Structure formats: structure tokens, C-alpha cells
């Protein structure tokens, strides 16, 4: 593996930076078209209701209204999963949650569109609803859908239970008998929202000929193209999707909510249609993450060795079938090398918005349960929480609780770094507690396409297909420059639209730096091969006698002759005369992304009067394999940690008896603000991933996994009592006190 880098590990200014600090960057809602209409969506006020009838005639009659659509405007979609996606964008027959779309309008102004919504008459017949996971799973609960119960599930669970997963090995009962102490606890976590600051937005233009243009804020414009073309029954080639700059996603923009609606309105009206969600709509109708109810039981001997672990996870994922508890079950015990372990999970539907991925989906809540019980065992047995974790930590060769045996991983290194850090030894004032927790995320590879062109002035253009969500154009340009041996500034990377470069999977699973990186390195290799060939032609020697060193071709071997190195720019300058343009491309589906572990240390102070918890100090350690652009890696770690802080302390979806969301706004759904926080120290650990030429692992997701437990463990120490429910809002803490 390459170890000495010229560009990787430096901190250049990102190529899209200037546009973003001057207000020029074009996000989803920033684009307009001539003759454009504005769209609005009408949403169900009921948690569950039959849509008896919808009368749109008065809305259609309003001057300025150009199209009105309902679920009836969409044809049957064959693929079951695409059908769920479509019916989540626009209800058919029943409204399944508060905020579910039931009709949409396109009009010549925002104001007229809003007026028109009021003129649509919907007759509902309300149906029984359920929003709590344990209630929804109980036999006899109101069913969100019939006939989708998971296979091989018994009568002890309701038809809302759509999936069951189990992982593990060994004999947990035997393991528990070997323990000196066994603790079993029940935990609950609230649903939280990704909270991206940019609401979903798109601009759609679809003609009667089936040709369309779609501009939208998404984590995957190829995904948008596939889903929308399937829903609208048009050819994928005819729908060109361009990803705007994206104002945050965190998993929340890995599906469609509004794009099929805007396309349909455009098709019906014959005009471009802009559709932008309000913040309230984002909360009510886009996907939050799952809420959870969990039982975790762990046994430990007096030396701190975990003898057995068992987790039962019940996740609530909203109004359509989904499968995400699996990731929770897989990650629950992934940090540890255990002889006896089992984790089970149930995916459950409720009358809530359909869940969608949120950063390390499924892992933070399961980890919260496991890391809390381990912490309690350490307390009860009088053991140091880091020593205990070191004793049980997974390392190279450990058989993971979810199946595979680990290659080189960096959990022990992260724990050792935490143990040695001054933070761990610093004195603790009164009312303060120090929490520690580990976390794990898989990281993904997946499909990717990259196209690289060598320009005659010695510069390089690179087109890739993954929206840049946190500086990936910078890291990809860096890897291209590193591979070619040229300065970073000579490379310009753009995110191509769906018509300009091959398919690429959604930007998720922390896969972009890894997968696009591999494709970029391979595209560079192809270009280098051609560059060497051209140099060989000019020198009139064999192509095999030329090698690429530091950005230049040079003869190698004693028969090759004695030519001075020929740079990329020199070879490119004459490319027109040596066989035409020089380029490289790569399409593939790399695997071996390399799992990543993190350890978080946090000091919390709890005000005994108000029950308010404040974060006093925070240090996050994470193995990222190789940090391409360390500043953006730190940023990922800091951002993930702070989202975890919000999850632990203040963020939650609150439903009333009526099944309606009570806090669809930033005022009452409180995400951390600057004054809530200290600096977040990010400590990068680099244990290279053997599956990547530069050692890269993903880095974006792991950091949201440990904070929930770390903070809860800190609070337990600060107040001498443990809470088993998130968020640990002041009323809950006061109650515990």
C-alpha cells in the first residue's frame, strides 16, 4: 500500500468554496425557469384515514391554477418497493400519517397555489391509528397495511411487524451462567430527524414527448432518475437529472418525496414546475429515523470479560414496510470479540412518516443500549470503562457478532488513544460526569463511474456521479492529483448529470471517498497508461519501457535510451498529433470498504435545579483508515458527534393522542445551536484499510454512533442515577432526581 503521499493529508481550500461563501452556489431552491409554475402539496391532518373522495374542481377553476393532481393521477407501479415510494409521495386510497400528501397544485404564483390548496375538498373517514412501536407490534394493533407481515413470524406479533433479523454465535445462556454480574435493561429512544437545513426542493420539466429535465437536491440523482422514470413510465434515458448543490442530507435525501409530484404536475401543465418543501413539511412528511424500544442483557465476569450479550431491538419505521433494524442488530455488539452473543431485531410499521436513513442508520440506538449496560456493569464491578472495553475489543481476526471475521481494524488504537489523552485524566468538578462509549459503522462500496480527461494545457477534468455533500470534490481532486503526480490546482472535479457519466449509487454509507476514490485512481491509471504510450511513441521506444514517476513519463531499463522525463503537460500538449485526446475512465462496484470504529469521551454537567445538561468537554477518536483531507474528516467527526448530542439531549418527534406530530419546527424540535456546545476535539486515528490502495475507510457515519451512550453514561455519573430513555430532556432528568 502507498504510504508516502504528496497531496493526501494536506488541507487545500475546497474547489467549490468561493461560490459557497459568496452566495453564488446553486442549491435546490435557487434555480428558476422561464414560465415556471409554483407547486404546493395538500397534506392529511389525520394519522390514519380513508380518503373517501377528493373534489379538486374549485381549485382547478381558480385563475392561475394550471394543474391539480391526486393519487389517482399515478398509474399502478409493479415493483413493490417503488410503489411504496410513490404512495409515500402521494397517498392512494388511505392517508397513512399526519402530513401524508393527498393532492398537489401548480399555479402561476406561490400565493395562488396556496389559495388553491384551500379549495380542494377532501372527505376523510378516520381509522384507528398507532404511533408507538410496542403498541404497534402487539397482536390486535390497528394495521397500517394488510398482508405485509414478515415471513416466518408467529402470532405473538402483529401484522405491522414486517421483518425479523437475528445475528450472533455461541450459547448465550451458557455465557450468562459464567458471569459474575448480569444486567438487563429496557431502553427507549425517540425518532429524530436528519435536520438538514435545506428543505427538499426541485425544478421539474417534463414534456408530452416523455423527455424531461429535473433539477433537485438529492444524495443520488441516478436513484432519482430510476425511481421517477419507473413511476412516470418514461425511459430513463429521457429523464436527465441534475443534482443541485445539496444543503445537507445525512441519509434523508436518499429517496424521493417531491420529484414525482413535480414531474407529474409539469407533465399535466406543460410547464416547468418548482416545488419546495416548507420546514413543517420536512418534519411531517420526509423521513426521520426510527424510534426504538430495546432490551439489552449483558453478563460480565469480575475481571471485566463479557461472557454473553443479548439485544432485542424493536424499531418503528413509519407507514410503509422497510428494513433497517437489521443494521442495528448487526452493529449492536460489533465492537466486541464475544464468545456468546445474539442480537435480534424487529422492523415495525406505524402511522408515522416513512423512515429513511439517518447517518449510520439503526446503529446509534442499539449501541446506546449496549454501551449503557456495559457502563453500568463497569460501575457495579468497580472497573475502568476503557480497560473493560480494551479487554473485550474486537481486533484483527476477531469473529464479529454479525458474521465476518475482521481484517485490520482500529478500535484498540482508538481506545488506547482515549486512555492516554489528557481529557481522560482531567479532574471532574461537582455535578459533572464523564462518559465513554464506543461505536461502529460498516462503510460501503457500491457502484461508481468516473471519467477523466487530460487537457492539452496539462490540466485535468474529472466527472463523477455522486453529489458532493461535504467536500468530496476536494478529496476526489486530491486523489486524482496524487495518482497522476500533478498539483491539486490542476484538477477540476464536477458532479455530472445523469446524461454525462455512467451510473453511480446514492451518496450514502460513507462510501464516496472510498468508492469514487478507487474509481478515480483506476481512471488515472488508464490515463497514465495512455500517457506512457504516447511518450514511448515520441521517443520511439517500447511502451513497456516507460514508467510514470512524479507526474512524468520516464524511460526505464537499460535498453530504453536516455531521455529526460516528459511531463503530463508536455505529453498532453502534443496529444492531437500523437493519436488524439487522452482520457481515462473507470466503472466498477468496489467492495472491501473497511469498517470503522470510534470512541467518544464526554464531560457533562447537570444542573440539579433545572435538569439541564450541558456538554463541558468532548473528545472523539476515530479510525478513518487514511484521512485524505484531515480538516474535512475532523468536520465529519465533529458534525456527527453534535447530531448525537442532539439525539441524546433534546431532539424528538412528539406525537399526541390524536397521532399528530406536535413539534414540526425548529423551535420545538431543538437541534444543538452554537451556544449549547464546547469545541469538539476530533482525534484522527489511521489504521489503513487493506481494501483500498491508499488505505481509506469511510468516515462520515461512525461519529453519530457513540454519543448517545457516552452522554447517558456521563449523566449517570453526574447525577448518580441512570436514565433509560432518550432524549434526556430536563423534565426527565428532574423526574429522575
Amino acid at each position, binding site marked *: 500500500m502507498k504510504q508516502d503521499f504528496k497531496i493526501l493529508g494536506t488541507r487545500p481550500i475546497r474547489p467549490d468554496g468561493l461560490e459557497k461563501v459568496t452566495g453564488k452556489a446553486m442549491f435546490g431552491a435557487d434555480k428558476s425557469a422561464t414560465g415556471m409554475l409554483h407547486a404546493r402539496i395538500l397534506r392529511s391532518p389525520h394519522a390514519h384515514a380513508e380518503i373517501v373522495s377528493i373534489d379538486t374542481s374549485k381549485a382547478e377553476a381558480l385563475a392561475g391554477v394550471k394543474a391539480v393532481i391526486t393519487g389517482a393521477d399515478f398509474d399502478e407501479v409493479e415493483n413493490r418497493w417503488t410503489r411504496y415510494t410513490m404512495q409515500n409521495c402521494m397517498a392512494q386510497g388511505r392517508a397513512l400519517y399526519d402530513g401524508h400528501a393527498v393532492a398537489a397544485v401548480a399555479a402561476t404564483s406561490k400565493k395562488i397555489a396556496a389559495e388553491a390548496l384551500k379549495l380542494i375538498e377532501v372527505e376523510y373517514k378516520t381509522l384507528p391509528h398507532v404511533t408507538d412501536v410496542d403498541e404497534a407490534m402487539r397482536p390486535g394493533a390497528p394495521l397500517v397495511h394488510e398482508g405485509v407481515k414478515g*415471513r*416466518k413470524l408467529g402470532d405473538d406479533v402483529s401484522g405491522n411487524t414486517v421483518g*425479523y*433479523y*437475528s*445475528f*450472533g454465535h455461541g450459547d448465550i445462556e451458557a455465557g450468562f451462567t459464567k458471569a459474575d454480574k448480569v444486567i438487563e435493561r429496557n431502553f427507549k429512544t425517540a425518532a429524530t430527524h436528519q435536520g438538514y437545513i435545506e428543505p427538499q426542493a426541485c425544478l421539474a420539466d417534463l414534456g408530452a414527448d416523455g423527455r424531461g429535465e429535473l433539477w433537485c437536491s438529492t444524495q443520488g440523482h441516478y436513484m432519482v432518475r430510476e425511481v421517477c422514470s419507473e413511476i412516470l413510465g418514461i425511459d430513463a434515458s429521457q429523464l436527465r437529472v441534475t443534482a443541485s448543490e445539496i444543503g445537507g442530507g445525512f*441519509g434523508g435525501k*436518499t429517496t424521493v418525496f417531491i420529484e414525482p409530484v413535480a414531474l407529474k404536475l409539469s407533465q399535466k401543465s406543460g410547464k416547468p414546475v418548482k416545488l419546495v418543501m416548507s420546514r413543517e413539511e420536512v418534519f411531517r412528511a420526509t423521513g426521520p429515523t426510527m424510534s426504538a424500544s430495546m432490551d439489552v442483557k449483558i453478563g460480565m465476569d469480575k475481571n471485566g470479560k463479557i461472557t454473553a450479550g443479548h439485544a432485542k431491538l424493536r424499531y418503528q419505521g413509519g407507514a410503509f414496510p422497510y*428494513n*433497517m433494524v*437489521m*443494521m442495528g*442488530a*448487526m452493529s449492536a455488539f460489533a465492537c466486541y470479540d464475544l464468545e456468546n452473543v445474539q442480537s*435480534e431485531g424487529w422492523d415495525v410499521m406505524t402511522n408515522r412518516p416513512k423512515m429513511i*436513513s*439517518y*447517518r*449510520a*442508520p*439503526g446503529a446509534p440506538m442499539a449501541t446506546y443500549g449496549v454501551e449503557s449496560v456495559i457502563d453500568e456493569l463497569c460501575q457495579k464491578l468497580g472497573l475502568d470503562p476503557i480497560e473493560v472495553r480494551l479487554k473485550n475489543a474486537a481486533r484483527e481476526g476477531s469473529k464479529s457478532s*454479525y*458474521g*465476518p*471475521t*475482521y*481484517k485490520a481494524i482500529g478500535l484498540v488504537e482508538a481506545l488506547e488513544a482515549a486512555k492516554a489523552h489528557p481529557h481522560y485524566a482531567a479532574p471532574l468538578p461537582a455535578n459533572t460526569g464523564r462518559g465513554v462509549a464506543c461505536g461502529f*459503522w*460498516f462503510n*460501503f*462500496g*457500491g457502484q461508481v463511474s468516473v471519467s477523466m480527461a487530460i487537457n492539452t494545457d496539462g490540466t485535468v477534468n474529472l466527472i463523477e456521479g455522486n453529489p458532493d455533500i461535504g467536500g468530496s470534490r476536494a478529496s476526489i481532486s486530491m486523489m486524482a492529483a496524487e495518482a497522476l503526480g500533478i498539483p491539486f490546482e490542476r484538477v477540476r472535479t464536477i458532479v455530472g448529470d445523469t446524461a454525462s457519466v455512467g451510473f453511480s*449509487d*446514492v451518496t*450514502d*454509507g*460513507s*462510501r464516496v471517498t472510498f468508492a469514487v476514490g478507487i474509481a478515480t485512481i483506476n481512471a488515472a491509471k488508464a490515463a497514465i497508461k495512455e500517457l506512457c504510450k504516447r511518450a514511448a511513441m515520441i521517443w520511439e521506444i517500447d511502451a513497456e519501457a516507460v514508467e510514470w514517476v512524479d507526474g512524468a513519463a520516464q524511460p526505464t531499463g537499460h535498453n530504453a535510451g536516455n531521455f529526460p522525463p516528459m511531463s503530463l503537460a508536455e505529453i498532453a500538449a502534443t496529444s492531437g498529433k500523437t493519436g488524439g485526446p487522452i482520457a481515462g475512465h473507470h466503472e466498477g*462496484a468496489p*467492495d*472491501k*470498504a473497511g469498517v470503522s470504529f470510534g470512541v467518544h469521551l464526554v464531560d457533562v454537567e447537570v444542573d440539579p435545579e433545572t435538569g439541564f445538561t450541558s456538554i463541558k468537554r468532548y473528545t472523539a477518536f476515530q479510525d478513518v483508515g487514511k484521512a485524505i483531507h484531515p480538516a474535512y474528516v475532523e468536520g465529519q467527526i465533529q458534525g456527527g458527534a453534535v447530531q448525537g448530542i442532539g439525539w441524546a439531549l433534546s431532539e424528538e418527534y412528539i406525537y399526541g393522542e390524536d397521532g399528530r406530530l406536535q413539534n414540526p419546527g425548529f423551535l420545538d424540535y431543538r437541534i444543538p445551536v452554537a451556544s449549547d456546545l464546547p469545541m469538539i476535539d476530533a482525534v484522527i486515528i489511521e489504521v489503513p484499510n487493506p*481494501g483500498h490502495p491508499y488505505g481509506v475507510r469511510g468516515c462520515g*457515519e461512525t461519529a453519530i454512533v457513540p454519543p448517545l451512550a457516552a452522554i447517558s453514561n456521563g449523566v449517570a455519573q453526574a447525577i448518580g442515577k441512570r436514565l433509560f430513555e432518550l432524549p434526556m430532556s430536563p423534565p426527565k432528568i428532574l423526574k429522575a432526581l
Partner: protein
Amino acid sequence: MARVVIFGSLRAFTDGVERMEISASNTRELLKKLSERHPALAEVIEAGVSLAIDGEVYKDAWFTPIGSNSEVVVMPLMVGG
């Protein structure tokens, strides 16, 4: 022969069988033979599974080579985030 481990809840589709040996040179061949041996698993495999071959996790690509002494863990399909 590759040593195949059917992991966790997938065992519900193999009548509880956890370990078996299958001779296959790549993932497609292995999954095909597995489907033949355990027809209940066929639908699950069709919908997608993940494989760990000697510790490396692969999504359901067909032509990933499998060594004659490899350990292959068959798991539910992992999805992104």
C-alpha cells in the same frame, strides 16, 4: 470446497442448517447451488444477500471469486445510510 455459514435469521430458510460445504468458484455459482439445496432461501437470495468471503463483505456481485478453502458467510443484504 468452500465452507458456507448461513447467518442468523437466514437460517429460518434453511430449516435451521447453519453450516455446509459447497464447491463453487464464484458467488453466482455458490448462490445458485445454495438456492437449489434450500429452495426457501431462493426468494431471499433473489431479493439480495450480502456475503462475507474470508472476512471481506461483498454485496451480491456474481463473479467475485471464491477460493477452494474459503469461508463464506451468507447474511441479509446490507443497505446504506
